[in-house]
């Protein structure tokens, strides 16, 4: 970690992430919304402040254009794997990785997310994935899609999961996380910008209130608030 101020670190990472191109053919049924560079930068720097990125094995579930995977790699993650079920999104991801000369540092896997996590978890030894970072579907098109992603993430048994969800679902998801054997808390509230990616959107630009949930196998440390402050928000 360099000595730059938190604000400067956000700015630098955001500058890298702003070159990540959005979905070339977004699919509404998969709720493929582009994660904004600013949001991705803040998420990864927050995770970084908890020691969950640099040198770690990080899996991005439903990686889409690889925004979060790229952010993780830019923050020094040792192993980064992006998993997505959509071939078009993975082609976008590969092209983004090439443009940033990261294609040899991030692996992409074309797989249904739940099936990937459960099959990996079936191996006799635990996978040793430290961090799962995911911006799952919010479950507005397919009810339960958000919970299905969390369950898949939990099946991998990582030390920590970062997941973006609509703030309106917070109480429900915190409860579900406990049932999955994780301690969960909302570590940041953010506005998720929804650009006019789909024809049915009437307004050219809106946003939805989202929580960054952090799920840990151990009870969360009291330092969370300080860490969030260090991440620049």
């Amino acid at each position: 970690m360099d000595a730059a101020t938190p604000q400067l670190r956000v700015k630098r990472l955001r500058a890298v992430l702003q070159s990540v191109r959005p979905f070339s053919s977004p699919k509404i049924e998969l709720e493929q919304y582009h994660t904004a560079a600013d949001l991705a930068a803040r998420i990864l720097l927050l995770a970084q402040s908890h020691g969950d990125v640099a040198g770690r094995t990080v899996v991005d579930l439903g990686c889409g254009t690889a925004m979060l995977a790229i952010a993780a790699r830019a923050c020094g993650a040792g192993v980064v794997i992006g998993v997505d079920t959509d071939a078009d999104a993975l082609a976008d991801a590969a092209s983004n990785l090439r443009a940033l000369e990261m294609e040899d540092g991030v692996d992409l896997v074309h797989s249904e997310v739940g099936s990937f996590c459960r099959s990996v978890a079936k191996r006799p030894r635990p996978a040793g994935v430290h961090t799962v970072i995911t911006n799952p579907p919010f479950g507005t098109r397919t009810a339960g899609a958000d919970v299905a992603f969390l369950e898949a993430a939990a099946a991998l048994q990582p030390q920590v999961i970062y997941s973006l969800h609509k703030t309106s679902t917070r109480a429900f998801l915190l409860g579900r996380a406990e049932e999955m054997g994780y301690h969960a808390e909302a570590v940041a509230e953010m506005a998720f910008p929804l650009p006019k990616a789909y024809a049915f959107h009437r307004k050219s630009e809106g946003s939805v209130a989202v929580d960054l949930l952090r799920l840990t196998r151990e009870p969360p440390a009291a330092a969370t608030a300080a860490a969030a402050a260090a991440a620049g928000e």
Partner: protein
Amino acid sequence: MRLVTQNLLTCQVKACMDTAATPDGGFLSYPLKVVPDAGGLKQVASPFDEGVAKSILPRLDWAALRKTAAELGVAALPEEVPAGAESDAGFLRSVYALVFDIHLEEGNLLCPHCGRAYPVRKGVPNMLLRDDEM
């Protein structure tokens, strides 16, 4: 895709997974066999990171990595991780190069249990199942 990722992947076919566990703790559908097309392996030297090498070592399934390395003919690994390996820079470098520098670009991953082939194109393994495999 690099061997560090191949070291995680296992067959996703339901009928195969359901019959893969053996009484002695083995798992027959793992590791997936790396079968490159002609010229389908790419070697890219990545800068050695000792911290990453140390943290990855205990997380690898060593027996699976050893089997894959032997099948590919790229390295002859000892049966167990040698004692003191985490402070042996030469050993760490060789493992690091093995798991991070060999990329399967074109070819297949073959399940050693049911024989299912997962094609790898442009470095991305396609693990999607047909309906009758779920």
